[in-house]
């Protein structure tokens, strides 16, 4: 880290940053005007449906895409100003789609990226070994990248990017297609990185990973709709999360599922072992109980981050639909 940066409290700071694509009728506000303050050593998650603007925001933070409005500072540097080179030195982005060299082997790809980052010595060796153990690619060093399975390829790409440890690491969906054991270990590695002072911003479609972040911003259509520690966001959920205990009548599960899935009252539903899990607005709880009479009974259960996500997005869609109709 450079001397000028260690004294600063914030690692990433955006001020009303936004980005449009297209113009006129086809103008798309991919990111509205977002102000974020991310301190050093924070593991910050950007969570949202497709098209929320997560990738666009990361690319602006990385200095790869100039904002239409607002500013960003990374470790105090403006990636689009005079200090662009400094900013580029402290930040690393792992994009969603990576390209490795398909005709190089796993080992050769790692060597290539180590050279690119100018790394060598003991530290590189230990990090490389650790990454090979997490990704379980250590026994495939001689296999060409093009012959790896989908998830192995993804893991190799992330491993190549993690060979060097920037002050600020931006990860765009690093675990898509990655199996559960490797996902778990990759997150343990991220925790180690932030313990050592690295700042990480990560996007993920996995809700269990969202809850592993110190803090998350829930994004939708270029806006932040909520931002807090994940457990606090879940605790703030004001909808009713219910478990349906099925009655012992023929086809109870199928009938209850069909009812719940077509009901206007229901925000979200999913199978839960042999029963069902349902989220409704609290005021609709009684009405749903009535609708399910004879098929099952309802009891409240602890909400999860996924419940929060589904509720927040469903409510936004409802408001958008009413606005459009008006």
């Amino acid at each position: 880290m450079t001397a000028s940066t260690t004294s600063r409290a914030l690692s990433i700071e955006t001020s009303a940053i936004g980005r449009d694509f297209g113009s006129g009728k086809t103008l798309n506000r991919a990111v509205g005007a977002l102000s974020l303050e991310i301190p050093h050593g924070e593991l910050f998650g950007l969570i949202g449906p497709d098209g929320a603007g997560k990738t666009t925001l990361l690319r602006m933070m990385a200095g790869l895409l100039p904002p239409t409005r607002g500013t960003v500072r990374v470790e105090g540097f403006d990636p689009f100003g005079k200090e662009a080179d400094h900013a580029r030195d402290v930040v690393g982005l792992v994009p969603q789609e990576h390209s490795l060299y398909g005709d190089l082997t796993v080992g050769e790809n790692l060597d290539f990226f180590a050279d690119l980052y100018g790394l060598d010595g003991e530290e590189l060796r230990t990090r490389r070994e650790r990454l090979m153990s997490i990704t379980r690619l250590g026994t495939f060093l001689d296999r060409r990248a093009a012959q790896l399975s989908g998830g192995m390829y993804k893991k190799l790409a992330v491993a190549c990017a993690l060979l060097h440890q920037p002050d600020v690491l931006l990860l765009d969906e690093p675990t898509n297609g990655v199996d559960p054991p490797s996902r778990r270990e990759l997150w343990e590695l991220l925790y180690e990185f932030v313990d050592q002072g690295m700042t990480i911003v990560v996007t993920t479609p996995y809700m269990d990973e969202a809850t592993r972040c110190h803090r998350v911003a829930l994004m939708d259509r270029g806006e932040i709709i909520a931002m807090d520690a994940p457990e606090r966001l879940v605790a703030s959920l004001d909808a009713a999360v219910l478990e349906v205990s099925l009655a012992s009548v023929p086809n109870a599960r199928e009938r209850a599922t069909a009812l719940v899935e077509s009901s206007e009252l229901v925000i979200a539903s999913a199978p839960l072992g042999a029963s069902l899990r349902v989220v409704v607005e609290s005021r609709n709880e009684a009405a749903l109980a009535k609708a399910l009479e004879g098929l099952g009974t309802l009891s409240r259960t602890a909400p999860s981050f996924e419940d929060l996500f589904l509720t927040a997005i469903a409510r936004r869609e409802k408001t958008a639909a009413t606005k459009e109709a008006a």
Partner: protein
Amino acid sequence: MTKSIVVEGLGRRFGDFVAVRDVSFHVQKGEIFGYLGANGAGKSTTIRMLSGLLAPSSGHARVAGHDISKAPDKVKASIGYMSQKFSLYLDLTVRENLEFFGGIYGRWGRALDRRVEETLESIGMRELASTSTAALPGGLRQRLALGSALFHQPPIVFLDEPTAGVDPASRREFWKLIRGISSAGTTVFVTTHYMDEAEYCARIGLMVAGTLVALDTPAALKKQWVPGRILRLEGQGLVRALPAVRGLGGVVEAQSFGNGVHVRFDPARTGDEAIVASVRALPAVAVHSVEAVEANLEDVFLAAADAKAEKAIRGAA
């Protein structure tokens, strides 16, 4: 019940590497069959063989009544296949992509138009027909890819990680479609790394390093591979205390899950209260909530992978 897919001793090598080893199973008509396993376990390789795209090195399989080695073209014509890699034309519109698939399967004229409309309807994308595919968010692209795989109304579809990278709301919508086609009689063979999706499957085959190590209903797999009782604890300092928790009497396993930890124990040796009291007694630990939870398929996944690794090590020794 009729069998849609019958696999006997199927194997595939690449050079001297065995990607799939002596796999046998069958899938019923209309069943949702889940195929799980770590990266590189051999899922896609199996699917490519069963789709008539890759010749097996050993063994046999019949798919929709056709032998995959002797009649791969008949197999291809009677299945839908959604590959793990993206398979749509980004510079075409939604409708054009479907028309393109229709062309491959020899449909034209009014029959083609009708089928395009039906497909748009069934995947809920009629309003998006003239949208450029490049402009679609990931979840909708996957739905369109499913529509393309189902275009020629095959009795069997192979879906290789159809929802990778898709957000929870879109994944649930996607699975509604899958359950719909299954109850209409289409056999669904699907791979996923989302354990919540695996719960939708009637049966699951678990692959470890090319070998099928388990095959059963989700409930039976949990019972067999993850016996005992599981408590979910939330609070402070729990993740750091995991090694100590693992050492408590009667504890079989302790893992972090989201922002809590899951402690699995043998109820014959200890109980809820004893476990919670011993965890609370650990230094720098606070427990705010305790809840009994069902084993999930991720636990099964981890347990099966471990057992196989152990066996391999023991076998070598």
